């Protein structure tokens, strides 16, 4: 566990000493700031709807789908290409620790971006009618789905030596979990097949549950399992080089 934390810290250090992290942070805060402002206008003074309005729109989903692949695309792919992965393995760290350490640093940076928005939300919670509970459940959803999307980014990064190919592959995996929601239009309310779609739909989990203050244990289990599965496959892919 200690090696995982040390590796994650080193990864974060490498990220923050380069301009990449600061550029992503700047663009994220700019875009989300504008979205926040537009959401404020759209709810027409009803601040209770603000969380749902902000965290259901296309800009929010664009950030959710694109940020994890962009952050994670270099993590393993670049190291494989440059040969530094071999150097890392010579320290005696296991493949599992490498994968978990890389994922942890990616997820921490992803969370850092959303934590940057908290002062805005705190202000509105203090002076307005924003529901603190809804805000917390929505951010729990961001963290859970973000963990899964970061894990798929790490898996994609282990599959290729080209960062851009990794980002494309991870985005494709994430898009499947995003677009599966639109299958629900094929069914009527009450259909059993609709329940199946809802179990996997990131959109359903955020829009219909977490931004309304509903925390379903099944949602937590699904995204935790998805994250675990992605990291498990990534470890196996990384181990394949030894054979």
């Amino acid at each position, binding site marked *: 566990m200690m090696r995982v934390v040390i590796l994650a810290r080193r990864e974060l250090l490498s990220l923050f000493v380069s301009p990449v992290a600061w550029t992503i942070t700047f663009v994220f805060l700019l875009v989300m700031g504008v979205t926040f402002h537009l959401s404020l206008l759209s709810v027409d003074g009803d601040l209770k709807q603000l969380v749902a309005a902000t965290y259901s729109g296309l800009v929010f989903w664009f950030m959710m789908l694109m940020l994890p692949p962009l952050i994670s695309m270099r993590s393993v792919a670049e190291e494989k290409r440059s040969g530094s992965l071999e150097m890392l393995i010579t*320290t005696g760290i296991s493949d599992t620790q490498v994968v978990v350490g890389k994922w942890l640093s990616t997820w921490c940076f992803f969370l850092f971006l959303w934590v940057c928005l908290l002062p805005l939300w705190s202000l509105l919670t203090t002076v307005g009618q924003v529901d603190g509970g809804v805000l917390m459940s929505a951010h729990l959803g961001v963290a859970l789905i973000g963990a899964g999307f970061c894990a798929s980014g790490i898996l994609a990064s282990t599959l290729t030596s080209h960062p851009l190919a990794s980002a494309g592959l991870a985005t494709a995996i994430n898009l499947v979990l995003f677009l599966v929601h639109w299958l629900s239009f094929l069914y009527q309310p009450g259909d059993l097949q609709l329940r199946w779609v809802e179990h996997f739909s990131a959109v359903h989990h955020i829009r219909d549950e977490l931004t309304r203050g509903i925390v379903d244990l099944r949602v937590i289990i699904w995204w935790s399992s998805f994250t675990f599965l992605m990291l498990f496959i990534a470890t196996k892919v990384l181990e394949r080089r030894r054979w």
Partner: protein
Amino acid sequence: MIEVDSLSRSYGTRKALDSISFQVPSGSVTGFLGPNGAGKTTTLRVLTSWLLPDPGTLRVTVDGIDLLRQPQRACRRVGALLEMLPLPGELRVIEFLSARARLKGVPAAKLLSEVQRVLEEVDASEASRRIIDTLSQGYRQRIGLADALLGDPPVLLLDEPTRGLDPRQISLFRGLIDRLRGHHTIVLSSHVLGEVEQICDRVCMISAGKVCLDEDRKAWTQRLESAGTIRVELAETHPDVESQLSSIEGVREVRSDGAGWIVSADRDVCHLIGDLARQQNWVLSQLRTDPATLESLFLQLTGPGEAS
């Protein structure tokens, strides 16, 4: 100590290592030689647990730890300097080495002193605050060497350690190896054969995935002495020189290169050639011993056209 018994490794259908066996005694410096594509890097990659050996490999131990059963534990006993040295250019030297030291299990309390120690060992203390991207090739190589020394591992695997170093730094490197000799088991893979000849106690040479020489300094020195040649040149032309030289006891082969004769013998026959010259009234313009070098032995054992 490193023990390798019947190590094989294939890439698809191509056999990179074909059941090789060798030992590196504790505290020794062993030169690991071979042409490009012979399997040196593959062997080093197995010893760092980057690659698994093929089934059928009997034994690979590093400092007494079975690499096949406990790869991570064995790997922590090894400090490796890789041929391709990918350092994170955006970090400072001290940041990079501190993170590596933590990954190698150096306690947090000893971190800075350990980093300073290895930087002093490789004569790179003044570069500790510099960003790696701004370092010269020589400095990068020394930082890689410092990384291999972190945590004081009992086994050091050094792949082309003097690449990019200037003559002064190469001399410092030799001094460093002399200091480490005895305390560390060192495997030095290099194409600079003169360097290997000067530094190493043993030589292990592989060619086409097989060990073709595994000898200590005494054995290989004897081999070089017996493989030496004698050059004979006469001031005037005489008939039948080649057959008369061939008749000397101990002479294996005599060949002419136009200007003179090259005599290969099992032992030193210079004085016998001198005696023969006196008997035949030859005026010798040159009688010179050309000792064999590790390079000539390398070329002889690995054969032509090995590179791939």
